[in-house]
């Protein structure tokens, strides 16, 4: 096996899914309702009794931000309401178990495994192929056909590129290409579906390495003939390991003497930092957020690590195709066009339109999910399978990390603005709320920015957004905040949420840029000169954080001076804002630490 940076993580094993607990669910539901009620009381008091009339320019944006953030709280309580894991069933053997035969002869199920690739290292893809070949299944006559879908067309025609076809041939798996890249990954899948015959198919990315039980543990769900797809959790086995603080200190300050080294070890040896420095662990998303959407049949597909029913995506493709042409015919008839014109226009559209199983869109996975959920006739169901059945690689530097998350943000926001699931016909109320929760989370930078800037504005203008930080304020604010924290803790029981919380705040800048670029319909670009790419591209992501931290610290120092002199108008206001500010600074700093992080081995060499 070729040595990669992630080779040392080869033996890492995934976490076990949190077991459902009726008691915890009931506790969460009760506390959730109490939190929402307390929040309502708090906001009512804020709007009616607390605004500082002399600083409404400050007070109103802040209370608006709090209100928008409160809407998030309500959506989260609804999303997290309950687990409803689907009953696990035996792996399927025959077609009759997953489809209505309607007179057809029965036969063993056919299953395809698609590995989508474009420009990844072929030896990396080989690992995924080999793991796919190692998958087990209890029935020998159920054949898995593995196909590499190479959108890079690396079949040897370009001597400067690695040869993906050669690797596929060596491993004895199928190799499919097309002579264009229309529709990117969705188009790649469409091409594969035209050339294959599986009743079920798995989608894997180039770096997705399935565990042996991937198909065995998921095919059984398709016995429910309404199930259109299964999503398994995406687990990254290469997240950064925790490092001893003492090691970091020794390397940073180049302390090579043994005695000094021993002292540092004794003082700081037990403290571990930088675990999953990029906040890549998606456990909160898969094990809590998406899994709890099973309750509403609203768990959407996330691409890699999913299994699909061919007939479901094809029903979408055919219906969409028909709808386009039928709509045109109706329009033309309403305009009293002649028969000839109708026929000729229909023919034109028929020839230009394509049969598209997965929507051609940057976020084809969530968009296709919305369309399938909205199919009133078939009432398709989706399942988030709780156990990890595959492992993948995560981004290893802040620039790639930000770009990847920006793609998710822009894709989802684009759907929100052009084909909003909240208003989509056919979705249930629960599904609309869940999709809205996803979309709303991408608007978070609006209120996070207000929360980050408010203390700074106070420090420099000495104006309070509230009439006073009086007893009344804390009477409403504290119970709400405390209950909120307790409720979320119960909701996320068993999962470390520290990184998630930090990145929630720290992501404000790139999320804001994504929101702006989608609204403007234009991509915001930063021009970077090639030789400075590493430092400059990292700096662009953390400059706003550094500015805000700088201003916050300056503000605190300035206020301390005023306090010492004795001229500060509201010491209690300072205390509240300084306290709040410190949390903001800690959260913002994670992105700066991630941008400057290097693996310890690399630091040692420098």
């Amino acid at each position, binding site marked *: 096996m070729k040595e990669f940076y992630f080779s040392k993580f080869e033996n890492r094993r995934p976490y076990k899914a949190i077991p459902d607990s009726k008691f915890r669910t009931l506790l969460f539901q009760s506390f959730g309702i109490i939190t929402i009620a307390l929040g309502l009381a708090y906001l009512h008091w804020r709007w009616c009794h607390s605004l500082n009339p002399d600083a409404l320019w400050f007070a109103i944006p802040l209370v608006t931000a709090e209100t928008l953030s409160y809407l998030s709280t309500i959506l989260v309580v609804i999303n997290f309401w309950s687990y409803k894991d689907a009953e696990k069933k035996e792996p399927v053997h025959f077609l009759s178990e997953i489809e209505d035969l309607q007179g057809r002869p029965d036969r063993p199920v056919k299953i395809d495994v698609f590995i989508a690739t474009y420009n990844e290292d072929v030896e990396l893809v080989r690992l995924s192929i080999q793991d796919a070949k190692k998958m087990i299944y209890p029935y020998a006559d159920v054949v898995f056909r593995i196909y590499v879908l190479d959108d890079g067309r690396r079949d040897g025609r370009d001597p400067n590129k690695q040869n993906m076809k050669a690797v596929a041939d060596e491993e004895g798996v199928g190799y499919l290409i097309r002579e264009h890249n229309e529709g990117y990954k969705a188009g790649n899948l469409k091409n594969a579906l035209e050339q294959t*015959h599986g009743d079920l198919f798995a989608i894997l990315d180039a770096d997705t390495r399935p565990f042996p039980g991937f198909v065995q543990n998921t095919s059984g769900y398709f016995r429910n003939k309404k199930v259109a797809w299964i999503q398994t959790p995406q687990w990254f086995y290469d997240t950064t390991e925790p490092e001893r603080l003492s090691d970091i200190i020794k390397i940073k300050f180049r302390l090579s003497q043994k005695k000094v080294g021993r002292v540092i070890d004794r003082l700081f040896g037990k403290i571990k930092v930088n675990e999953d420095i990029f906040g890549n662990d998606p456990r909160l998303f898969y094990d809590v957020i998406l899994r709890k959407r099973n309750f509403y049949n609203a768990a959407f597909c996330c691409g890699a690590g999913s299994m699909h029913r061919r*007939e479901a995506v094809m029903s979408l493709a055919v219906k969409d195709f028909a709808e386009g042409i039928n709509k045109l015919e109706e329009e033309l008839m309403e305009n009293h066009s002649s028969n000839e014109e109708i*026929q000729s226009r229909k023919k034109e559209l028929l020839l230009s339109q394509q049969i598209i199983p997965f929507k051609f869109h940057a976020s084809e996975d969530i968009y296709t999910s919305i369309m399938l959920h909205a199919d009133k006739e078939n009432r398709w169901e989706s399942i988030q399978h709780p156990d990890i059945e595959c492992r993948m690689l995560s981004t290893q530097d802040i620039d790639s990390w930000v770009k990847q998350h920006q793609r998710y943000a822009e894709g989802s926001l684009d759907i929100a603005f052009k084909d909003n699931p909240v208003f989509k016909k056919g979705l249930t109320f629960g599904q609309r709320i869940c999709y809205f929760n996803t979309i709303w989370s991408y608007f978070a930078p609006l209120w996070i920015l207000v929360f980050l800037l408010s203390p700074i504005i106070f420090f420099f203008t000495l104006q309070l957004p509230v009439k006073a930080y009086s007893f009344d304020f804390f009477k409403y604010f504290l119970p709400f905040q405390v209950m909120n924290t307790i409720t979320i803790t119960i909701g996320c029981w068993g999962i470390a949420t520290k990184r998630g919380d930090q990145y929630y705040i720290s992501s404000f800048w790139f999320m804001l840029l994504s929101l702006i670029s989608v609204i403007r319909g234009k991509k915001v670009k930063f021009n970077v000169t090639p030789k400075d790419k590493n430092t400059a591209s990292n700096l662009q992501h953390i400059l706003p954080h550094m500015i805000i931290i700088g201003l916050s610290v300056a503000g605190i120092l300035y206020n301390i001076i005023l306090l010492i002199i004795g001229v500060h108008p509201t010491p209690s206001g300072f205390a509240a804002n300084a306290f709040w500010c410190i949390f903001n600074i800690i959260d913002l700093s994670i992105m700066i630490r991630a941008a400057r992080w290097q693996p310890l081995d690399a630091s040692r060499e420098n």
Partner: protein
Amino acid sequence: MKTTIQKPELQPFQVSGSEIKKNEEAVVAIKSIAPLGNDFVIRDEPLPEMLQLTSEFSAEKLPGVLLKGVHYYDLQSIGYINNTGMAKLIGLLRSLLQKGVGVRFVNVSDQIRSKIKKMGLDHILPCS
């Protein structure tokens, strides 16, 4: 008030409209046809095996005859069609239209016809 719109009777997508009447007669004569290379043979009995129009089914197996710029496909032996099969029929229609050849599906069973209608394809796939 929405007026009910009378949809025109389905025409085959074909090159010349005046050939329709003549071709209808030819269609009635086709009971069952089987492909034989580039020529077509008219059989007396229908094909024995029930065919399923699903993903493994290749369009070449579909019995058909080309008459005066219209390609007729006999769906008599098709006992089952699924979504993938319908996508294949659409694909067939598109590829022939691109070559300037009309298409018509004949001897379509009621079961298949109702499936086609359910998917909204009854005004797209020309059936008789």
